[in-house]
């Protein structure tokens, strides 16, 4: 049994036989040829390229993929195959070293791939998978080998791989593939996106896996916790089967709640919104019975795709989401990346402390053209539904004013071209720094709503980086300092009669729901899969009861005490969950 921890990129539990795919598994031995064979070898290069090009043409016309990201990737492959200097590099190697075509192809492509893989930028290093895909394709045609075709699967499997290439995932027989586990990848890698769109669990970035496992070996992919268990023992397997059944049962039980309102026992309606990243997650918000999208992260536009997003890239992504939600609210958050994470900018400021550096709204306020591109797209999309916009990481009133001034600039531009937009689109801000929490009263005069981002608020209030294992235990939303800030922000929002929501991880933590309601929160924005569970809690409590809990918590002086009280209260409401 081997237990590995990775990044959970698509939820669910899969238990099935392992199917190992290794895009590096063609280990081509170095074999030399006689000088007289050179012409014949080079002839084979030409044929393999021609067949590979033909195959790509067929894939393209068969799958109607021109518009998708995958189509883009194949387009790059096609250009590689037509690139004379690429082919020359292969034939040069054959001529010079007198090696077989297979060896030359493999060597050249691995050189290129390792060049990409060595770059310290996840977007670029993930593209090494594309190069391996080209290698596979060429070798397949050279060796006339029948591909270990995943279209011919006859039983359920979990795919284990170094990384999955677009060709591999395009060829899957979707009925039998139950989950993915890969050594590499991240939230924006191809595997993650495909898994989410298929609705199957996936865990990536597992590090070196022992891929030489027996073909009948069982694998558990836990896409909820980010764990993969290879060859589990009887006990673990039985445990996970029970867990999987529980999850299924609980999910179907919760689905009954889908069409019921999130209303407390004493009749107070709570809005439950979803946090999403990709447009294809919008439909899930409705499926899970959400009231709208409370946080639409737009970073994926900058991270996935080969170049800085154009106004139309933005617009299409927003329009798709808004149309899915019809007239339910969609809160779009403007770009929230650090300068160090901007993949298309070659300007990486040397920051010793990026969390306190040029990021998020600060970056936008120093890069007007990029910021305006996004604002124009949001404004254009504002006429399609109930669209609202929010700025992340606002620390001072000055910043909010500056950002709003740019919005007005963009509006004037749109007026000039008679492009329609909603001039009354609500503009709110995230409250995620102590500075903005302490000046919430001032900010409330000029913002249409607040959304409390608890993750950053905790980090900045407690001065704790929770990714740092030496201090991560100090990171707690139950610290009195954090709760005091949250309480005062809620009060200021109520005083100014503006909207207020909580959109951090706390909003999906079953133990914190009662406290938040008791403190006066009426809108929560949370991870979409958690909506039914939180709705169940909301429907099991009364505001009066929550208020009592909140008052009790306000008198406690330590995070540990507060956590215990919250856990007790929650376990009385939903004993089966705790």
């Amino acid at each position, binding site marked *: 049994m081997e237990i590995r921890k990775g990044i959970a990129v698509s939820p669910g539990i899969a238990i099935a036989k392992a199917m190992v795919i290794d895009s590096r598994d063609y280990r081509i031995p170095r074999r030399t040829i006689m000088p007289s064979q050179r012409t014949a070898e080079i002839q084979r290069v030409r044929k393999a390229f021609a067949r590979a090009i033909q195959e790509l043409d067929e894939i393209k016309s068969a799958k109607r993929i021109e518009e998708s990201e995958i189509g883009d990737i194949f387009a790059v492959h096609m250009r590689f195959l037509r690139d004379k200097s690429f082919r020359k590099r292969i034939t040069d190697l054959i001529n010079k070293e007198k090696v077989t075509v297979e060896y030359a192809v493999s060597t050249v492509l691995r050189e290129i791939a390792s060049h990409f893989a060595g770059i310290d930028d996840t977007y670029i290093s993930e593209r090494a998978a594309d190069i391996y895909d080209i290698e596979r394709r060429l070798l397949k045609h050279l060796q006339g080998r029948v591909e270990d075709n995943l279209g011919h699967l006859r039983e359920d499997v979990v795919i284990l791989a170094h990384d999955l290439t677009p060709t591999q995932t395009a060829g899957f027989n979707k009925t039998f593939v139950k989950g993915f586990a890969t050594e590499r990848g991240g939230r924006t890698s191809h595997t993650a996106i495909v898994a989410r769109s298929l609705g199957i669990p996936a865990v990536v970035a597992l590090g070196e896996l022992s891929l030489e496992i027996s073909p009948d070996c069982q694998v558990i992919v836990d896409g909820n916790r980010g764990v993969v268990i290879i060859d589990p023992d009887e006990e673990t397997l039985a445990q996970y089967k029970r867990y999987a059944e529980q999850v299924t049962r609980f999910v179907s039980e919760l689905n009954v709640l889908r069409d019921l309102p999130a209303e407390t026992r004493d009749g107070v309606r709570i809005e439950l919104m979803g946090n999403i990243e990709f447009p294809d997650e919008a439909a899930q918000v409705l499926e899970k019975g959400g009231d709208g999208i409370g946080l639409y992260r737009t970073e994926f536009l900058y991270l996935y795709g080969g170049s800085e997003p154009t106004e139309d890239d933005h617009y299409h992504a927003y329009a798709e989401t808004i149309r899915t939600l019809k007239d339910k609210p969609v809160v779009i958050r403007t770009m929230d990346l650090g300068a160090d994470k901007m993949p298309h900018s*070659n300007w990486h400021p040397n920051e010793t402390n990026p969390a306190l550096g040029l990021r998020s709204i600060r970056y936008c306020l120093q890069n007007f053209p990029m910021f305006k591109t996004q604002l124009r797209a949001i404004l254009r999309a504002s006429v399609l539904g109930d669209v609202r916009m929010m700025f992340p990481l606002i620390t001072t009133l000055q910043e909010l004013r500056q950002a709003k001034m740019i919005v007005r600039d963009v509006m004037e531009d749109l007026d000039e071209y008679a492009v329609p937009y909603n001039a009354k689109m609500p503009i709110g801000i995230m409250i995620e720094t102590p500075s903005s929490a302490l000046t919430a009263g001032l900010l409330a005069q000029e913002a249409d709503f607040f959304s409390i981002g608890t993750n950053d608020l905790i980090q900045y209030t407690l001065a704790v980086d929770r990714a740092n294992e030496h201090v991560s235990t100090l990171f707690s939303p139950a610290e009195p300092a954090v709760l005091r800030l949250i309480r005062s922000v809620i009060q200021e929002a109520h005083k100014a009669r503006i909207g207020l929501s909580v959109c951090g991880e706390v909003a999906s933590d079953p133990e914190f729901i009662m406290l938040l309601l008791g403190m006066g929160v009426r809108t929560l924005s949370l991870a979409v899969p958690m909506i039914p569970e939180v709705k169940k809690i909301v429907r099991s409590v009364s505001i009066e009861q929550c208020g009592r809990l909140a008052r009790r918590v306000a008198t406690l002086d330590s995070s540990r005490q507060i956590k215990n009280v919250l856990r007790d209260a929650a376990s009385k409401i939903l004993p089966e969950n705790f």
Partner: protein
Amino acid sequence: MRPAMQFVDLANTFDADISVSHGDTTVDGKSIMQMTMLAATCGSRLKIRAKGPEAQKAVEALKELAEQFFMGVSQPQVGQQEEG
């Protein structure tokens, strides 16, 4: 890889030899392999050179395209030099 793809596609429409350099590295602007490898490591300064009947046109068009990619970045610069 999309920017490199667009760049190479455009470069190939001109009757000119096109080279792109960054620092000491100079590559063929019509080769996707060479351009992606350059793009993977390059900084913000690119130098585009062209030689041949359509050199002038090629440099102008490629410069414009390159500037589009860098739109919004504070200090992008695309140098140019023509011969022939």
